[in-house]
């Protein structure tokens, strides 16, 4: 733990920083396959939700599940 004695150190992650890439570029970057494998491995360990209490959410408006009624709408394909 001596290597963490100073806050000027950085810890290297395996996750590539793709935040600046376009969608065109993101499917072509070096290391895509390994990064996907890592992400799948992370997701394989399902992370439980983090809750302030053991309380289970209830529906917002019990007994009121419908939004507006189905519309009888005219097709307009301008």
């Amino acid at each position, binding site marked *: 733990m001596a290597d963490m004695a100073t806050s000027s150190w950085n810890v290297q*992650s395996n*996750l590539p920083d793709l935040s600046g890439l376009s969608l065109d570029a*993101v499917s072509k970057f070096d290391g895509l396959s390994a990064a996907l494998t890592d992400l799948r491995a992370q997701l394989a360990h399902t992370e439980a939700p983090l809750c302030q209490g053991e309380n289970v*959410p209830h529906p917002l408006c019990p007994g009121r599940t419908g939004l507006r009624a189905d519309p009888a709408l005219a097709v307009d394909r301008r």
Partner: protein
Amino acid sequence: MTGVERFELPLSTVAAVATGEVGPADVGLFDAVRRSRLLLALVGNSTRQEIAGRGERTSPHARPTSPAQAWALLCRVQRARPDAVDAVLRDPMVGVWALQLLRRLGRGAVAAPADPPLWADRAMLASLAASAAIRAGVRCVVKVPAREGRLWLPTLGLTAKMARGDWAVVGVETGPHGTVVFGDSGSVRLPDDLAAAADGWDPLPLAEVPDELEGKRATVVLDHLSPYRDYRGLTDPVDFPPPLRKRWQRDLAEACELLRVHSPAAHRLVLGTVRSLVPVSAPDPSRPVSVSTPDAPGVVTMSLPNDVPAVAATLVHEASHQLMACVAHLVPLLRSVRDGPEPLFFAPWREDPRPLRGLLYGAQAFAAVTSFWQAYRPAGGMRADFEFAYHRWQLRTALAALHALGGLSPVGAHMVRELARRNTGWWTEPVTGEPARLAELCCRDLTAGWRGAHLGVARGDADALASCWLARRPAPARLPSGRLGVAAALPAAAPSRAAGRLWLARLRCTDPVAFADLYAGLARGNVPADGTTPAGLTAADCALVAGDEAEARSGYRAAAADAGVHAPRTDTWTGLGLVAAGPSGILATRPELVRALYAALLRRTARPPGPEELARWLDASDG
């Protein structure tokens, strides 16, 4: 081919996450990590080989736009209007869908009951493409899966039912002159102002909140529509009536303003991490709901707390979880768990035993909450004093456990050290008078409830104690230990009354008149039935919270006496233990011991003595 850098986690960020004193770079890291994981998942989900041999491949109805075509459309829209794609990719529900699908594909597409069919789940990429195209005004036609015939357009909203069947395919035609959605049972032209409700169209409501700079505004989505918003599985849209919506919008705006004024770092943390709130109801006023899920960065599921400061504290709590989960996505915070059941511990904010991960995440979140209440003390009166004292106890208790336990990775251990080092000033900060008394009461209450519910005493040890009692000998000098994993001797009250008494303590701090009215009403036997008061509260609970010890003791004694010998009211025993220090205090400090002794005596005698008599006998021990 493009080379990219891997993320580096500065230890200064670990320290900032520990203390809640985050800067723009720290919340920027959250966004970059979220986006990078999302992009990886999108690529993984849209790659053709990912679905080879993985369940049904197409719709039994019309064929939806393929993931490859949808991806190509998204790329085309991004080249024309990158902001439109960015907006869609910033919708946290898009991340929820993408990560869940990648997990599903990774485990072989074994469907859970609430999962959509695989063809629909994969083809949902077309929904993202449609949203981006609509935002950008890019001309296109796509066919998109629609649950119950309703089309979900991320960041925008939900159409009414346009097609028949559990999972249908609907068409979207969009271009510079507007958008039409059509299915086999109807069609709708979306309004020009997509934020306005119209026939066949429900937009996602927004809450405007104050941004970091005074006078500027940011927005948070109030998501009651998206099918992926429930962390437990796919879910239907629910109604969100305008009066309730307005209350959420008002309380959120006021809570963020309160944070901006009193705790700027917390305000930055909340606005930098929380994008969507999923409003739900709480099962009881004393049991608020607030949940974050590591695979849903930016989403907080919560019920609306009773007052604005509590809304602010809840947002800080959940935003802390969001940031912590981001750190955990970069580097492990715990060492790998050996095979076998995960060890569980007392987490001083939950009534159930929690794993080490829960203890660590909770400590970090409550450090931020404690920091908020400390900052709010000059303006927050008794309530802020109480909350500060209560939460710092939670933090201190958790840190003591985390220091004693193994299992943390080097980064996790560093975070715990930072949590302890940065907050040492809190331990000695004075809190006096009624807030201090109430905080101490609530801490003892939570501990007592947890011990009574989850600790047991080995049957042989309990029988030996019973033998001593029956032989009229003093209790042994060394009393047996309560242990997790040994069944509790008597069933605990469910739910515990600690949450109700905590609610009462808060009411006493914020609204003494309402507290007094409730106390008087309960004393007369009037139990409020309008859902605004926690279930099961008694006048004795009010007396305890009010510091009226004689009245509380009398009430708990009467309730204990009313219960049958074979079905004792252990919740009233806890109440008796909480009334005051002294011999009966062991009913609160070691309730599992009294209960084990009572159960052992019940196995051998027809009528064991009452809890206070047993407590006095045990208390005379030196153990």
